[in-house]
């Protein structure tokens, strides 16, 4: 929060550009994220948030620009090397993505799989140190009492906190959270964001988190990025984020005769043929 002597960024995005078919989904997006910094990414649906996240994890190979995680360019990596690089990124998803039948603790240990010897994974004997590490991660998200509970018996908010613990177990310096509270009720959403904020501060972990509820940004992030039609239109400290910015990001496109504005709403979608079946609004 308080920028002490500048340290090398954990994540560096440089003039990132990408398109699927049609207009660019991302155009010339550049920003750095410092260690321990919590960054909220906002913007209307289809603004390119998801593509940005996918580019950072190399799920999408961007057309132009660079993405560096901990000083390493992901662009040319394949196979084992890519896996190695991905260890440095903890991920939190909108739908938690826990293994339903595993306990909370075993789900946290998923974050250790890359580090465990293969025989330990095959025998499902992670060993005492790894167990202790996983327990500690669960404790940090306030769920030590639920270590043995099956994931599908937990509430949505609890599941998302287990997912945060899983990301922590990777011991990476960077956590990406793509709409982590979009499926949660307001109380759980607040508790999940508070957890993310706490672990970031305690562990000096950088968090990049997309949100569509702008009102959640204030108590959570250090800095706000806004995407609109694939461009970075705002990059301000959270203190400088005011209603006028909000309006600039979300006001409707200057084509009033087309309220649905289909071509404006869609560039962020990965599968154009799906976009016709799923109304854009359902994700927001």
């Amino acid at each position: 929060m308080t920028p002490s002597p500048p340290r090398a960024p954990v994540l560096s995005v440089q003039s990132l550009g990408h398109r699927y078919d049609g207009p660019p989904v991302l155009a010339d997006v550049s920003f750095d994220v410092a260690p321990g910094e919590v960054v909220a990414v906002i913007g209307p649906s289809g603004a390119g948030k998801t593509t940005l996240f996918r580019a950072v994890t190399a799920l999408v190979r961007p057309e132009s620009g660079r993405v560096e995680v901990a000083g390493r360019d992901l662009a040319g990596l394949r196979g084992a090397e890519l896996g190695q690089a991905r260890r440095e990124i903890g991920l939190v998803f909108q739908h938690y993505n826990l293994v339903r039948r595993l306990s909370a603790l075993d789900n946290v240990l998923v974050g250790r799989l890359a580090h465990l010897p293969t025989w330990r994974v095959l025998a499902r004997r992670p060993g005492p140190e790894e167990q202790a590490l996983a327990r500690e991660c669960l404790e940090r998200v306030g769920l030590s009492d639920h270590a043995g509970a099956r994931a599908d018996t937990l509430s949505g908010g609890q599941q998302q906190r287990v997912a945060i613990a899983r990301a922590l177990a990777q011991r990476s310096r960077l956590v990406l959270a793509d709409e982590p509270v979009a499926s949660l009720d307001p109380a759980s959403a607040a508790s999940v964001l508070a957890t993310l904020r706490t672990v970031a501060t305690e562990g000096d972990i950088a968090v990049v988190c997309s949100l569509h509820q702008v009102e959640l940004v204030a108590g959570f992030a250090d800095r706000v990025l806004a995407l609109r039609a694939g461009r970075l239109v705002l990059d301000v400290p959270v203190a400088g984020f005011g209603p006028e910015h909000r309006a600039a990001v979300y006001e409707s496109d200057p084509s009033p005769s087309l309220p649905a504005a289909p071509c404006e709403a869609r560039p962020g979608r990965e599968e154009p043929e799906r976009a016709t079946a799923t109304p854009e609004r359902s994700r927001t």
Partner: protein
Amino acid sequence: MTDTAAELGAERDRPAGAPPPPPQRAEPPGRTPLAPRRLPRVGQATLALVLVAGFVLCVRLAEIDPRALAEGLPKMAGWAARAWPPSLEGLDLLLLRAAETVAIAVVGTTAAALAALVACVPAARNLTPARLVRLPARWLLNACRGIDSFVFALLFVAAVGLGPFAGTLGVALHTFGSMGKLFAETIEGTPAGPLEAAELTGASRLKVVRWALLPDVLPGLVSVGLYMLEFNIRASIVLGVVGAGGIGQQLKNAIDLLNFPRLLTIVVIIVAMVAAVDQLSARLRDRLA
């Protein structure tokens, strides 16, 4: 969202620079996928006509003959009357043969399960995205599934001789096909998100399968196995007819000799056996749910 996650998975498995995979949901562009295609009225009438004509043809080919049934029914009633009381003569042999039938099903199903566990990996889309591997695996499974245990048993009787071993081989080969396919479908039905999350931690595929996939699908696989066991108990009964062991041979002998009291005993044994296994299996499967 699971769909989207599956898409993500497909995206990940594709090496960068490779051409995009053919669309899975082949919706022609320009048509909304939600609107069902409507045949014109004339087309509907033609379709109905073709269906009716086809069914009539099938009735002819099946040589449906109600008169023959009317003549045959009293004959069967007569047999039923002569079947009482059931004969207990040679009951120990019948019970041994019944046990043989169970043994054929148990050993055949177990062997098939082990082989299917291996074969379902290349056959499941989410584990093996490469069509060049997956499709041949599917073809092998479909071929085994398409040929009935009975037909395999006929071949094996010729190859290894009369007896339950031939029957076991027949059951195993056919069940391998069915089970491999069902296993693969069970695995494909598992949500993609958790697997993707595990894989994006940088863990190898083997580790992901062991830790994140197997615990999720294992109950489903066991359930399929029990279901196949139930099915195979029933399938093994008829194997005796071709000399491949079990109580079916006794059944055929009793009918050939018009020994209806013995036939009744055999039928009672079969019904009891099938009911017991179904009950047991249903209870175990309930517990897995």
